[in-house]
């Protein structure tokens, strides 16, 4: 049975090996280049501290026109290769057997359907695992420079393209393809479903699910310029929200309508003085303690700022949690595949 699965699918395995190699051919030289450029920039800023700021090199790195393209190619590749695996290995694998009736040939040899499916799943999911590992080693290594230059690695496009996630995606999408093809028995439909699941998962996890894995850290600050920023670490945190809240802790969208009349007056005066339109903040007459009179008034009224963020050190916890969820869903999809194959008629 092992021999036959290999014989049947070796061409697909080979093609995906080649795809991976092509991706490596893009990432290895560019990754090297960026790493060296970063080291160069570090040396430069150490020598010319007046010109370059060593703590923020984002202005000097990744700014060329081709850098954007390379970055896009890297993200597309790391997202796309697991998707392609799900679409062109996971989905057709069973569907083609059903479509061409060869399942009836295979299932009337002296191998039980359970064994047949188990060996097939083991091979293909095993391949997806290996493929995901190679892919993530490449992509994570490539992203190293980018990560070092203080990047938030939690957001969409960064989170899924590093660490455990490429492995989770490869295995999960392959299993989804398997399940969809066992369910609907049509390659095209299985392709469409696998693609749909991919889109749904990438969109929903980044925006609605991932922020809630762990209770975010909450910081509060007085009203005033930069007071809140001073309390949020700069390196790689994921800021989920920044709000101005009133004395009851209720988040305020637009300050003016809800502000106490005294503060409203100060704001209005400031706008007139600035000849400004609504919302433009102009320094009014300095208050006795040197602060902004509007901020002072709002502070007195109990207003303050609140931010919620996930600290950078939680990154690997988040990776483990999300990859764990995907592996759980992979197991469900595999279980459903067994049900469809074993319990339904050929």
């Amino acid at each position: 049975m092992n021999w036959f699965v290999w014989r049947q699918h070796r061409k697909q395995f080979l093609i995906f090996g080649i795809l991976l190699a092509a991706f490596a051919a893009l990432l290895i030289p560019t990754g090297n280049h960026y790493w060296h450029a970063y080291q160069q920039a570090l040396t430069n800023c150490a020598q010319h501290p007046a010109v370059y700021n060593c703590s923020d090199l984002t202005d000097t790195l990744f700014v060329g026109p081709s850098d954007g393209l390379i970055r896009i190619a890297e993200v597309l590749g790391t997202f796309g290769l697991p998707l392609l695996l799900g679409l062109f290995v996971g989905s057709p694998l069973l569907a083609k057997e059903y479509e061409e009736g060869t399942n009836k040939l295979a299932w009337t040899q002296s191998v039980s359907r359970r064994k047949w499916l188990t060996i097939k799943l083991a091979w293909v999911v095993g391949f997806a695992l290996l493929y995901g590992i190679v892919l993530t080693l490449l992509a994570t290594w490539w992203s190293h420079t980018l990560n070092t230059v203080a990047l938030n690695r939690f957001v969409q496009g960064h989170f899924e393209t590093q660490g455990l996630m490429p492995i989770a995606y490869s295995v999960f999408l392959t299993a989804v393809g398997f399940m969809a093809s066992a369910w609907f028995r049509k390659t095209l439909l299985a392709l469409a479903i696998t693609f749909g699941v991919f889109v749904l998962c990438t969109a929903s996890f980044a925006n609605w699910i991932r922020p809630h894995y762990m209770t975010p850290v909450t910081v509060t600050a007085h009203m005033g310029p930069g007071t809140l920023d001073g309390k949020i670490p700069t390196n790689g945190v994921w800021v989920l929200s920044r709000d101005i809240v009133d004395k009851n802790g209720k988040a305020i969208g637009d300050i003016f309508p809800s502000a106490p009349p005294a503060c409203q007056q100060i704001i209005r005066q400031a706008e007139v003085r600035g000849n400004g339109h609504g919302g433009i903040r102009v320094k009014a007459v300095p208050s006795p303690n040197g602060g902004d009179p509007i901020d002072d008034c709002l502070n007195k009224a109990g207003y303050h700022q609140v931010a919620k963020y996930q600290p950078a050190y939680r990154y690997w916890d988040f990776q483990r949690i999300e990859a764990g969820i995907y592996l759980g869903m992979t197991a469900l999809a595999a279980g459903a595949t067994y049900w469809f194959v074993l319990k339904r008629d050929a």
Partner: protein
Amino acid sequence: MGAKAIQTKQLGKRYGSFWALENCNISVPEGSVSALVGPNGAGKSTLLKLLTGLSTASTGDSLVLGSRPQQHEDFLSGIGYLAQEIPLYKSLDANAHIEMGKHLNKRFDKTFIAGRLHDLAIPLDRPVGKLSGGQRAQVALALALAKRPKLLLLDEPVAALDPLARHDFLSSLTQAVAEGGLTVVMSSHLLADLERVSDHVIVLAAGKTQLCDEIETVLHEHKLLVGPRDHAKELGEGVQIIHETHSAKQSTLLVRIAKGTKLAARWQQHEPNIEEIILAYMGQAKEGDAR
């Protein structure tokens, strides 16, 4: 007859609210070659799939080679099955299929299949998708036979073949049967072909078993009667009318006569051939549907 290779009791298969097969009672003796005939949609494919364990029955029971059909290696190793569309892995060559057979079966006669395909001059290294329909059918049959099954179930294997390929296929089959130890059930629309290779007949129509017996017995029990029209209702006990046609003055009846029944002398008796009998049964089922 001795042991039974297949025995079904009230076997039925329902898809949604549609019964593809209902109350199917057949019994197939070991070593026989049975022709499974019936119009399209009569449930022939459904019955064969139930017997292989590829699908599960909605009602009733069946015993195939002494056990219920199941997805188990021991059961499957006794069965050779050839599905209607003659499925093979189109991109793989015959050699790969032989290797598949070897790897997927505990018992697989590689020497037999290699020799057989060689004798038939079928190229072993060409993708089977590029072989002719007749060659593909031969590869598929050889694969099924190389399992050395006790029971071979063939679902319209010759339907898509030209007369020469059909002849070759049936010769191969006859040869395999002659080697002994094989029970065959083969469905087909081609009644003349079936008569050539089979000794039993099963007629399915409208999802029900109409007839299941040895061909010799069937021929013996059925008569074509021609007589005056008015007497059609006076045939008496032991005579079952399968099909009747009437002209102004006389009636032609195809009847099944129980052993020892005597017929009135006014009936002219003829011996119908198996094709006529089968057609009569199919026609009966159709009228039954229309009623």
